[in-house]
């Protein structure tokens, strides 16, 4: 395997892990509420920006990270309570506009609370590059991959082994049936939003040392995360992960071998291709609502 190929692969996996986390967030919310949360990217932004500002204010990094994740989770809960809940049962267009409005609102608040500058977070364990078979890997990438793996395992345990996790799964399959067996669906919704927000925030924190963070970093990451979720199959947790990694790799390979100028377009070309030819995604259940 050539060094160049390996380099692209590693870069793709790193970016892909971030997309996977964002996609998981989309999936969890979609499963609980059938809402596509356009504000998902803003959780990523909040995670990164809050950590930067708290660390700059003197908090030790682990504390700043924990506080930032909690802040993002709180925003997620607020989003569910004030934006999504009041619009229960509204048509798709309405819900889409609401979450887009929420994302714009959050970005606006971000410029007021913080600023419009680009910020960097210090890498968690230095930036001495690691050599692997001719390619270099930043230590932060190992953090990204490692933490993502841990999160995936924890979530698998959560959904399959805990009562709350199973309640979330049950609600996503059949809301009415879940209510009838005594599951507090409202609480499930809140937990879903909080959990998704936390995932997004973690993604933002992990990637901040590599890709930096700013008030508008959420837009593209959110959209690409969504493309990843669709690629893997909207509504499928494993699909989100597979989709995220696959998208990251395709993007890196495309940028490396075909055209780096059009790197950002790759995710959307993939999105359209999936929607046209395989709307169920790679691992999805049920297809798109086609005519």
């Amino acid at each position, binding site marked *: 395997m050539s060094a160049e190929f390996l380099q692209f692969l590693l870069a793709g996996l790193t970016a892909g892990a971030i997309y996977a986390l964002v996609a998981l967030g989309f999936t969890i919310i979609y499963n609980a509420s059938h809402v596509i949360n356009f504000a998902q990217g803003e959780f990523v932004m909040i995670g990164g920006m809050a950590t930067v500002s708290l660390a700059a204010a003197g908090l030790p990094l682990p504390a700043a990270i924990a506080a930032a994740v909690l802040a993002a989770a709180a925003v997620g809960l607020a989003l569910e309570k004030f934006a999504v809940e009041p*619009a229960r049962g*509204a048509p798709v267009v309405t819900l889409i506009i609401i979450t887009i409005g929420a994302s714009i*609102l959050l970005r606006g608040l971000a410029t007021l609370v913080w600023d419009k500058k680009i910020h960097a977070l210090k890498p968690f364990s230095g930036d001495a590059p690691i050599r692997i078979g001719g390619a270099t890997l930043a230590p932060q990438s190992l953090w990204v991959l490692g933490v993502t793996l841990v999160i995936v395992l924890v979530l698998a345990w959560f959904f399959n082994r805990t009562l709350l996790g199973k309640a979330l799964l049950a609600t996503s399959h059949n809301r009415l049936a879940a209510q009838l067996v005594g599951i507090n669906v409202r609480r499930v919704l809140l937990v879903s939003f909080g959990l998704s927000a936390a995932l997004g925030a973690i993604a933002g924190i992990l990637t901040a040392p590599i890709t930096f963070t700013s008030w508008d970093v959420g837009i593209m990451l959110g*959209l690409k995360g969504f493309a990843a979720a669709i690629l893997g199959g909207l509504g499928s947790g494993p699909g989100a992960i597979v989709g995220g990694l696959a998208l990251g790799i395709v993007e890196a390979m495309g940028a490396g071998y075909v055209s780096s100028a059009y790197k950002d377009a790759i995710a959307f070309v993939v*999105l359209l291709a999936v929607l046209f030819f395989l709307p169920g995604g790679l691992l999805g259940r049920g297809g798109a*609502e086609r005519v």
Partner: protein
Amino acid sequence: MLARLASARTGGLGALIVVLALAPLAFTNNYHYEIAILVALNAVTCVGLNLLIGYAGQISLGHAGFFGLGAYGSAILTARYGWPPLAALVAATAGTALLAYVVGRPILRLKGHYLAMATLGMGIIISIILVTEERFTGGPDGMAVPPFSVAGVALAGERAWYAACAVMLLAAVWLALNLIDSPAGRALRALHGAEIGAQVSGVDAARAKLAVFVLSAVFASVAGSVAAHYAGFITPAKAGFFHSIELVTMVVFGGMASTFGAVAGAAALTLLPQLLTVFKEYEMVMMGAVMMGTMIFMPKGLVPTLAARFGNGRRT
């Protein structure tokens, strides 16, 4: 019945004519004209978009892409290839229509969220191409656009531009109203109301959706071409995601399935940021709040909600 319908339509058109004719009396400087022209151009785009979203019940989160294609089409053909502006406008519109036709066929087989995301992806791809092909488009900084002229006579001065855009808006509204109250228009609205019932009544759903998609793209493209010539400049942001969202918000805020609602929405949301320049930093917060607030408290939009409140009931 017929008389009532005619009067609602001609009444609305009449009111619009009066407003457009009298508004300049309130303008005290060129800036006011500029805003009015901006409103008119946004309104034209929104009237077309409303046909797609409000009447036909589809959705597009990428319509700024069509606006941008019209703008850049006119810009490139006139600035780089010396085409006469009118010919360039026609060519750009035809090109956009063709793209909408080709892309629309697979996209409109989708529904709901999937349709929304596909149009989103389409719009973003268009805007990325416009940014990246610097040789033609001038890249992220945009490019200059020659003035609009027909047979050597240039359209110049705020008053002349205002008149032209006002006429354009009236034409767009008139065409849209005619369409809505016609067999083709009823077919579209029927598709929105009950798709299977419409199909069984003989409506070719795929063809009808594609037709209105292309039509709304044409409205956006023409508005884009004109906007480019008016401003003398065009940037890729005009084709971007945020502009697409602005357009949808205008349609939704003003009232879906209401042509005058689309105009009102365009006016309201074009004026709002201008009024808020004092609070420039709060612009995004306000925009987001407006979007959320409208959809939560006034989901039918401004004009239909007011119409229902004042006992009208008749949709225009």
